[in-house]
């Protein structure tokens, strides 16, 4: 993907595709367990007080630090 930005930079209602995951194991292990992998397309439903993401039939909430560690690209 040519141009990627941190997921935390997206506004509510935006859709994106996961481009890269953080190397930090504490974040990575959870994201992998939720099924968030490069190539997964997701929608940002909300950014405050935490980020709420919807993908497939799943909805998860993550804090700003985790959201900032995920790189996404255009869908």
């Amino acid at each position, binding site marked *: 993907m040519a141009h990627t930005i941190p997921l935390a930079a997206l506004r509510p209602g935006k859709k994106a595709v996961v481009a890269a*995951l953080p*190397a930090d*194991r*504490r*974040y*990575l*292990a*959870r*994201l*992998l*367990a*939720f*099924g968030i*992998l*490069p190539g997964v397309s997701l929608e940002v*439903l*909300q950014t*405050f*007080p*935490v980020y*709420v993401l919807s993908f*497939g*039939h*799943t*909805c*998860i*909430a*993550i*804090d700003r*630090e*985790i959201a900032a560690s995920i790189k996404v690209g255009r869908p």
Partner: protein
Amino acid sequence: MQRRIILVGSPNVGKSVIFNNLTGKYVNVSNYPGTTVEVARGFARLGGVPCEIVDTPGIYSLAPITDEERVTRRLLLGEAPDLVVHVADARNLARLLPFTLALIDAGLPLVLVLNLCDEAAAAGMTIDTGRLAGLLGIPVVATAAVKKIGLDRLRATLAAYRPQPARPFLLSPPMEEAAAAVAAALGDRPARRILALLLLAGDRDSHALFKGDSAYPAIRAAIARAADSAGQSLAQALAAERQAQADRLAAAVTSYGRARRRTVADTLDRLARQPLTGIPILVLVLYLGLYKFVGGFGAGFLVDYIDENVFARLITPAVDAACRRWLPWEWLQSLIAGDYGLLTLGLRYAVAIILPIVGTFFIAFALLEDCGYLPRLAMLVDRLFKQFGLNGRAVIPVTLGLGCGTMAVFVVRTLETARERLIATFLLALAIPCSAQLGVVLAILAGHGRAVLVWAAFVLAVFVLAGWLTARLLPGERSPFYIELPPLRLPAPGNVLHKAYTRMVWYFVEIIPIFLLASFLLWFGDRSGLLAYIINAMQPLMAALGLPAAAAEIFLVGFFRRDYGAAGLYAMAAAGLLSPSQLLVAAVALTLFVPCIAQFLVIVKERGALAAVVMTATIAAVAFAAGWLANMLAPLLI
């Protein structure tokens, strides 16, 4: 020979409903289910064979992050179950299949249950379970447990199951070579393949398992070679390969039709998680659930009714009369029916005052749990809780602590780091009143609206201040916040009542002996003069708080159980012995005071004796200081 069947799966997929359905009423409640902390064990007869069914804490993968997930992993990999039932959410088949594949890698005898198939159908999904069973090589059953659909077929499948280990799904050749190299270093042992894969993925627990082993250098070398050729994180590469297999499997068995829109649930969901509407909803939930239902209905109406109509009118006079008539010794009469009698005090407090309050709380909590509200609560308070060195997940033990602090300290295990567990335990012991205290405090302050507000402000201020200070004084990092938000669902009344009932039984079995012991010790202290001596010795403290000497007794018994002390306070207030400002001081001090002995013992068990003693001493000092401050400020405030 009894078979052991283990239920596993991620949170919110209905494991416990299936568990309750399989086991019926024969549940061992010594480890209470629900927010499954330990494991719940039940018994069932399947095809004439007695089976032990084990419900486990929810996990997403075999690489655990929290202590409770470790419990599940240990059960799966350490105890050779006869059958493992993976309960999955049918709508999220593709996301949950990697875990099924991992269980197959582990060589476990496996059945896959696609639960919530009614929700999948509503979303327009049709899943060909027969085809999936063929592809996976294990039995697959579709159920909608809450609606009791598919449960007979599940029972029949479990009864007819014969061990037939499925063939693992092979990964890409380089990954398989790496796994084989690690497995070779592991030597001959069960679950070799999954251990090798977990080691490749960098799972800390698996690495800890082999750290001292002579084979460890060889394992490390094999992993390093694989990491070099993979060029990216092995954990991520493995997950990606697994997900690709899962996606292919799901695509092969799923067909899509028209989805029914869940407009009402979606709107409610949005309202509950946006702060502007979510925080008023949170306040409303607390007001209706805690203040109105637990405080008003439980602590007000039910307590009055049971205490006045059942105990004061029927049981106590009958026991008094019977004792006087049949028991010639005065000491025995007073042991059973006196001021500190086992029946008139111990059992009465437990049944008439505590049970209705705790019971109504457990019903309210089970409702919140089953409709899926708790994760939304967690995300709303995450930023606030981060100030206390915790994250939003801690709201679940904290909310449960409003019911029973002892139970809540167990649930603290769901937090990731030792530091978070310590802070949460401390705050639970100090500033989270249990439902019994809460109910009693609300009941005695009922006529004094301002006193309730001042009391709440005091306790909240102590909670915030203590949390803020602890987070700054205690070294260590905080853990990231992540939580799955399950869809909001209408709770099934049967499941809510079953959950509340199971917890009530657990609570009751736990407290009755302690209540009886406490009234016995009080009776003994009373007769031997020890009680008078201690109360006398505590008089200066009581005087500093502006309380009558008799209040010392409440603090003394408050150590046996905070709720017992609170019940004593209720009795004193009912007798009109305390002024409004004294009530406030007593309520503040008692709310913050040392946790009851049961909670203390659990703290020792979970966090260690040193932490428990330090916490208790700190709490006693803080409670006294806050009580003193309340006494000083009371004339200004109420």
